């Protein structure tokens, strides 16, 4: 039952959203049916909870964390559920007539039902986390409802504000609830409710309290979070009627009451809740007087009434709690009816401005009567339900609960606020229904359709009946609710209309009379005054909120974002290097790292000389890189050579070979790119260089760079002079030949022991080649580098000037002799490639080195003959080579699957060939072949893609010229 009850609205919501947008009536009936079903279900459950019983339904969700779907209904929940469903039903009926036919109503009803479901979820939650879930769901759905007319800026702002505030509160509450669960050791509501003392005495109590109250108070629009509520009035009236009378704002109250047995009764509770409640009560009432918008008036009155309930709850006495529960119900009835009445007025006259409205009684007497009764209930006129709960409130207010100033002023504030309530109620009635007939109304008012009025009639009847014979109507329900909240401490209370002449009655009378007098005094002022109360008009909650939000989320955030980050590369690099430096040295410094003593242990003078050269190259490259790019590249080559010789010196011939080959290719590559970079000429008088901050910056960079250098030096020196640890490499040295079948251990590691690394590495190369290729297909050189280089222009001009020369003769001549040699080198390098490839497994070399060497052979031909020349002669399909290479390498690895071994298990055996003898056949060779093919393809692809730009550039130049021509006219 409970499950159906909580799911039905959501299911209905889902169904409604799929209705076509012009099927408004159907949607209304459908959601009415859903609401009715829920109402009936709730009603049907009454017998089970009437006698203090609790219904539970459990469903596992996140059992490890104590979060389960627990539906739990007791008397109090029942009361709320019935309010929600009943008023929901009435509002649906009302909305059916209120909403215009052109509105896409199914969406409205869908959200409406979803909201109803969320609200039911809150009241039925038996798990506090689940409660938080539904709590936020109400925030979200109410956001959508308030923003329903989103073409209207006010609706958007109102919705946003409501969501921001209630959502924030909800998140705080969520934390509070988790903390509460932490204290209790369970999120189950029953467990929480039964451990009030534990919670109140826990050191975290105050934190929990504040967090939960933040949630409750924001939701209930308590001061200082009240301001969202009036702006939520931009919603369609049925929404206001539902949200602000019976449901959304009551969620906060619901939570306060629900947790009342657990949290209430301490000083902190009293002060926080009391202050908020009293201020809200008074301010709300005061503001309400000065509203010109009908719904605005009602909104502030809602705030005020919520304040009243809050004050009651703050007092901490059981009787006050009873009063609070009672007033909650009463307020729901009369406020819903008033909202609907206001909606009718708005609907029928086209305005809600009380300055324009007057004398409507003669146009819509029924509505007027209903509204009058309802507002009398709001004002607390005897024989109506509002009076009863107000009397209880007064009675509690004069009781002394705690000896402090707050408690002392409560009765006075209560009376004053009550007086204001009378004033605004009177004003509502008087200015709308009495007085001269209205002028300039957008529409001619008349009575609404009967069914639109019916919900009001029902509610007003309820007000009356409850007001006259409370004990027989509302009594049992109230009792069930109260008992489920207060349990054993349920006080004795009486729901009689007449308690005799006593102080509360006197206070009521004072309030009534004072209110009337006040109204009479202010009548003329109010009839013309502008919106908002005097003194506080400038203190508009919304404006403050907007400003704070803008400042916070926009100005400050952007300022912070800008300050705390940078979109420039250099600072990022500095930070990265700095942090890396700190991170690298910190563990060493903290643990007292001592670098090994510097000793000129067996320094070879030749080696030292070599590195002096290397160091000069490195520093020179760093120094020249800005203005003398070519020089920097040359020096970089020098540093590379020194590195390479070092590798040889220190027993790494493989590395030396590879480094050399890569070095060559890299140089050619960068040279290929150099053509597209802008000229940069050193200007010794550049003011930037003289600039002090610039110098300072450079000094800082230099210091950081030096620090890194020194750090690397110390660490590497220390490491190199330490004894080698027990490494895994002895395994490789022992087995490279016996199990890997090669004498070159490095190569065996690469193609066998750690062949997977190599596979990944060639894949990287493949990726980069593809990236370069595809990026260069879209390459557009800068306009000034589009033209041919200066040298070529001059040479071509020279050729053109001399009639006996053809264009391009200069280059042909230039390359005449060199190209002959370069061409003959092609097969030679090919042989070298084969050599490197075949011996790789046993001696330095291997597929990678071979691939690069072969690509150098190709590039040499390109340099000798030019792109067209080569491509006319050689079939170059680097993409295909790459693909084949990768596939071959993988297929080799996969081959071992056939024999039941894991990927890349290599196999080696000696084949006996006639004439030749035994030759080793290792699958690793095949793998290396894949590597070779891929490396060749990738390197050639990268180089050629770059080289092709020179061919493409003239085309691009033509295109650019065309574009420029198009732009100018």
């Amino acid at each position: 039952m409970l499950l159906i009850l909580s799911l039905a609205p959501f299911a209905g919501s889902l169904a409604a959203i799929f209705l076509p947008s012009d099927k408004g009536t159907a949607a209304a009936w459908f959601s009415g049916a859903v609401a009715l079903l829920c109402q009936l279900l709730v009603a049907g459950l009454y017998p089970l909870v009437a006698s203090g019983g609790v219904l539970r339904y459990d469903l596992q969700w996140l059992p490890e964390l104590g979060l389960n779907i627990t539906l739990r209904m007791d008397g109090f929940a029942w009361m709320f559920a019935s309010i929600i469903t009943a008023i929901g039903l009435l509002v649906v009926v009302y909305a059916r007539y209120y909403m215009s036919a052109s509105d896409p109503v199914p969406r409205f009803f869908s959200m409406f039902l979803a909201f109803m479901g969320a609200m039911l979820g809150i009241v039925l939650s038996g798990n506090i986390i689940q409660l938080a879930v539904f709590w936020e769901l109400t925030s979200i759905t109410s956001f959508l409802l308030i923003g329903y007319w989103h073409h209207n800026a006010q609706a958007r702002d109102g919705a946003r504000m409501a969501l921001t505030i209630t959502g924030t509160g909800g998140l705080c509450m969520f934390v509070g609830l988790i903390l509460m669960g932490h204290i209790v050791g369970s999120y189950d509501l029953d467990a929480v409710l039964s451990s009030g003392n534990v919670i109140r005495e826990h050191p975290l109590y105050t934190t929990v309290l504040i967090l939960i109250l933040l949630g409750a108070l924001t939701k209930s629009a308590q001061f200082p979070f009240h301001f969202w509520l009036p702006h939520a009035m931009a919603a369609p009236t049925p929404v206001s009627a539902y949200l602000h009378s019976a449901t959304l704002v009551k969620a906060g109250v619901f939570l306060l009451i629900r947790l009342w047995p657990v949290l209430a009764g301490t000083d902190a509770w009293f002060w926080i809740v009391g202050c908020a409640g009293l201020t809200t009560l008074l301010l709300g009432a005061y503001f309400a007087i000065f509203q010109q918008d009908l719904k605005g008036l009602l909104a502030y009155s809602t705030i005020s009434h919520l304040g009243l309930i809050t004050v009651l709850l703050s007092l901490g006495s059981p009787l006050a709690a009873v009063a609070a529960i009672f007033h909650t119900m009463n307020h729901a009835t009369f406020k819903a009816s008033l909202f609907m009445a206001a909606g009718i007025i708005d609907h029928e006259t086209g305005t809600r401005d009380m300055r324009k409205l007057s004398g409507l009684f003669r146009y819509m007497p029924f509505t007027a009567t209903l509204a009058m009764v309802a507002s009398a209930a709001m004002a607390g006129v005897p024989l109506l339900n509002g009076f009863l709960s107000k009397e209880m409130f007064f009675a509690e207010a004069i009781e002394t609960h705690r000896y402090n100033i707050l408690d002392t002023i409560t009765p006075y504030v209560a009376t004053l606020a009550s007086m204001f309530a009378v004033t605004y109620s009177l004003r509502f009635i008087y200015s709308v229904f009495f007085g001269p007939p209205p002028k300039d109304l957008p529409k001619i008012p008349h009575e609404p359709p009967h069914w639109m009025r019916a919900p009001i009639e029902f509610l007003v009847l309820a007000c009356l009946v409850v007001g006259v014979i409370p004990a027989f109507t509302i009594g049992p329900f109230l009792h069930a609710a109260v008992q489920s909240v207060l349990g054993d401490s349920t006080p004795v209370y009486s729901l009689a209309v007449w308690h005799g002449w006593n102080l509360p009655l006197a206070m009521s009378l004072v309030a009534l009379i004072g209110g009337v007098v006040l109204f009479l005094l202010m009548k003329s002022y109010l009839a013309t005054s502008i919106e908002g109360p005097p003194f506080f008009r400038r203190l508009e909650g919304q404006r403050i909120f907007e400003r704070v939000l803008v400042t916070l989320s926009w100005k400050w955030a952007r300022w912070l974002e800008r300050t705390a980050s940078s979109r420039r590369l250099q600072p990022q690099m500095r930070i990265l290097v700095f942090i890396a430096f700190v991170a690298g040295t910190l563990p060493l410094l903290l643990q007292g790292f001592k670098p090994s003593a510097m000793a000129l242990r067996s320094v070879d003078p030749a080696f030292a000389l070599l590195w002096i050269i290397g160091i000069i190259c490195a520093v020179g490259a760093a120094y020249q890189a800005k203005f003398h790019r070519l020089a920097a590249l040359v020096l970089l080559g020098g540093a590379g050579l020194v590195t390479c010789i070092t590798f040889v010196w220190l027993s790494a011939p493989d590395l030396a070979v590879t480094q050399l080959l890569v070095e060559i290719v890299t140089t050619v590559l960068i040279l290929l790119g150099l053509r597209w970079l802008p000229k940069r000429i050193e200007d010794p008088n550049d003011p930037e260089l003289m600039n002090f901050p610039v110098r300072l910056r450079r000094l800082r960079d230099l210091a950081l760079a030096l620090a890194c250098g020194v750090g690397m030096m110390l660490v590497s020196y220390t490491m190199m002079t330490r004894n080698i640890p027990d490494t895994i490499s002895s395994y490789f040295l022992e087995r490279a030949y016996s199990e890997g079948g090669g004498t070159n251990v490095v190569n065996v590691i690469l193609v066998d022991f750690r062949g997977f690394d190599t596979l990944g590495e060639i894949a990287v190369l493949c990726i980069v080649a593809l990236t370069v290729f595809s990026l260069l297909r879209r390459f557009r050189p800068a306009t000034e580098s589009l033209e041919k280089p200066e040298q070529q222009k001059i040479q071509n001009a020279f050729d053109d000037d001399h009639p006996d020369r053809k264009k391009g003769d200069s280059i042909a001549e230039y390359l005449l002799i060199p190209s002959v040699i370069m061409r003959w080198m092609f097969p030679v390098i090919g042989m070298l490639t084969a050599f490197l490839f075949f011996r790789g497994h046993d001696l330095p070399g291997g597929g990678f080195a071979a691939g690069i060497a072969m690509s150098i052979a190709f590039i040499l031909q390109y340099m000798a003959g030019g792109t067209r020349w080569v491509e006319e002669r050689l079939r170059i399909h680097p993409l295909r080579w790459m693909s084949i290479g990768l596939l071959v390498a993988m297929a080799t690895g996969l081959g071992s699957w056939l024999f039941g071994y894991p990927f890349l298990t290599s196999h080696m055996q000696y084949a006996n060939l006639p004439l030749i003898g035994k030759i080793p056949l290792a699958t690793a060779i095949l793998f290396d072949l894949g590597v070779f093919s891929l490396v060749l393809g990738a390197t050639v692809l990268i180089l050629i893609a770059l080289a092709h730009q020179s061919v493409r550039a003239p085309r691009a130049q033509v295109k650019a010229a065309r574009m420029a021509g198009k732009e100018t006219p």
Partner: protein
Amino acid sequence: MELVLSIGIGVLTASGVWLLFRPRTYQVIIGLSLLSYAVNLFIFGMGRLRVNAPPVLEPGGTGGLLTHTDPIPQALVLTAIVIGFAMTSLFLVVLLASRGFTGTDHVDGRE
């Protein structure tokens, strides 16, 4: 030996890092190259320095760390060289593209 090489590594690192902080793309690419030399040598140094003990076995024989240098750092450096080469070329092309699109060789695409 160790001292010389570690000073060399230090200088290469310092020059590379210094160039990384510079505003021109070309400086950055040279810096990355220098840095990659330094890093390669550093990795290599982690296997300790040995003269004339290449990890190449006699056919049919086995080896050990007494007679041969540590082959693993060498294998790692080889992989690192390849990847470094790939990345250098990629970066080069990207900086060319950036230069093409923005018209400047500043790393941020504007002066």
